[in-house]
């Protein structure tokens, strides 16, 4: 069974006449990496907002593990199940990288681990040194901030990872590092990873590639 399933999903922004999605049916399974590509303004971020429960479809339904996302406690869903990497990062810029991650773990109710140790490990994994970890986010570069955002999304070990342009600010080396992490998460740990991007390169690690254009999803062949 699919982890996430879109059933006849339509979406239109409040007060706008433009339909972003119309009658979309899509399924996302555990253990796979999905990339969704589309031009700027195609609706990629909008899709992630719907999948993360930050927004609710105006038509049809999105199911998580068979349950209607619109009907369940979406705070709980975001805190426990989903790890979201925002295109605009959405970090607490006044707090340190470490505090951002520990706070996220606290919100998710992570127990049984030394949160600081785990946070530092995660940051190390995305290439952030302990020294930078205790700096205020404001004092990190764009790429570093993006990697903090990624570490934060993974901090509570979510089963679903929703990433919006996660490598937008990264150099080649760090991009490869991050993509490798995603691959490990999906293929070794059985998570469902959904990445939206307009960077074709990211599709290299994907198990399924979809293009989004004018509200229509079309599957593209892998390895193209």
């Amino acid at each position, binding site marked *: 069974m699919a982890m996430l399933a879109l059933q006849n999903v339509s979406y239109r922004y409040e007060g706008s006449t433009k339909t972003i999605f119309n009658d979309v049916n899509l399924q996302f399974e555990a253990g796979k990496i999905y990339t969704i590509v589309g031009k700027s303004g195609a609706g990629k971020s909008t899709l992630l*907002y719907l999948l*993360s429960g*930050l*927004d609710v479809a105006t038509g049809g339904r999105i199911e998580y593990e068979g349950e209607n996302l619109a009907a369940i406690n*979406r*705070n*709980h*869903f*975001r*805190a*426990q199940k989903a790890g*979201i990497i*925002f*295109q*605009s990062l*959405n*970090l*607490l810029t*006044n*707090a340190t990288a470490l*505090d951002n991650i520990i*706070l*996220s773990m*606290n*919100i*998710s109710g992570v127990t049984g681990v030394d949160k600081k140790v785990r946070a530092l490990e995660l940051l190390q994994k995305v290439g952030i040194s302990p020294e930078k970890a205790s700096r205020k986010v404001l004092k990190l570069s764009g790429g570093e901030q993006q990697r903090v955002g990624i570490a*934060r999304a993974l901090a509570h070990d979510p089963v679903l990872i929703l990433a919006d342009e996660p490598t937008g600010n990264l150099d080649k080396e760090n991009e490869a590092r991050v993509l490798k992490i995603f691959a490990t998460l999906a293929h070794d740990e059985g998570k469902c990873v959904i990445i939206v991007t307009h960077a074709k390169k990211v599709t290299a690690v994907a198990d399924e590639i979809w293009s989004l254009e004018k509200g229509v999803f079309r599957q593209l062949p892998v390895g193209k």
Partner: protein
Amino acid sequence: MYLITNALKNLWRNAGRNILIAAIMLAIITSTVVTLTINNAAAKIIDDIRLNLGSRVEIGQDFMEMRAAGLDGRTDSVHLSIDDFYAFATSDYLRKTIFSASMYGWSNTFCALRDDPSNPGARERGDGQGGIVLDETCKLISTSDPTTLSEFGTLRHITSGRMFAELNECIISEELAALNGIALGDVITLQGAIVTDKHYSLTVIGIYADFTDEYSNFMFMFNRPVSENRRNEILTSFATLISAGWETSYGLHIRNEYYLKNPDHVRFYEQEVRSKGLPITYNVAINQAAYDKVTGPLSGMKGAAFTFMVVILLLGTIVLALISFMAVRERKYEVGVLRAMGLARSKVAFGILAETVMIAALCLVLGLGIGSAVAQPIADNMLEERVAVAEAEDAASGLGNRVLFAQGQMQTNDKAAGYTPESEIQVRLGGEVITQIMLITLALTALAGVIGVTLITQYEPLKILRERN
């Protein structure tokens, strides 16, 4: 728990904004502490005065009013018996009565100051009706409660022996003792100046230093009778004075103080004493003029403190409300991020509330500390100024006072003469003020908190985050 930790960290993260909020809160709390403690301390003193001077009824002949009513020529039935006074003192309206009386005395066994040392007490004068009487040489002053002798502790203090207590004990001034070589334990003898067959033998049990003016009353500016010299006063108990079977008609001048349980009941009390036979030539009244004079500066200060407190609280509340409104709006993004990470609305609100509470608690402690430290000097200053103004006004208006003489007594129309405004205030931070301040702080915190929470619950995380991008 982590919400509290995070709130604590946020205090540092947003130090600038929080210092601003804390400064405003601290200013409000400190000035409220100061004004409230001053207000309460003044109220307490005024209450005390109201329970003493303010509930003290005097029954006496008011020559001004007698003259106004055309009664000043009347001499009939003006003498009340001691039993009458006892009857007036027995009333359910009264808390206590202090009996006091004075009488002119005469003695040829000791010499009064300014008397003729070679022939003490031997002067004679006309009685106004063709006869000759002996000139009085001293004044016996008595009270049933020596603690009410107001000059003791200020202008007079006992330098040897003790205050009178038992029957036939008295105390005298150092000057009188020195002039006559009187020592503690000596017995002095004297008799009434008007009715001469009543004798006293009083044991001198105490001697006091006397710093009062010998002739404080301006009536004696030119003519200074020996008996009016304050050094010649002989202080004894009321019981002693009346023990020789004295009656008011023998020149005993009774000036009791009747203390009401409830100062508002003065008219009921008057009805009662009238029904017990008090003639209309006697007045029954609380000395309102004196009460007003004594409490004037205090109640002025109390009013000013209260007004100031209300203004501060109003202005402070408005400013605090605005600042908290802006502070939360400024934190919109932070709220969006937390909500996006799955933190429930109520928990976000709790976090922000926790920050406000921490700031408020800190300000409460600091405000109580600073406020209680500066309240006393501020109170002293305010009261001092007001007392100075009141005294200047009093000195200016005193010139217009008239003096009346009747039946061997004199009165002025300034009933507050001899009273001075209360000029001491002890400001203390009591449990009552602390409770009130805590309630005010709680209200301020609630206000700031409610504004924060209301705003937060209106925010949709996605909208906030999109707005920012």
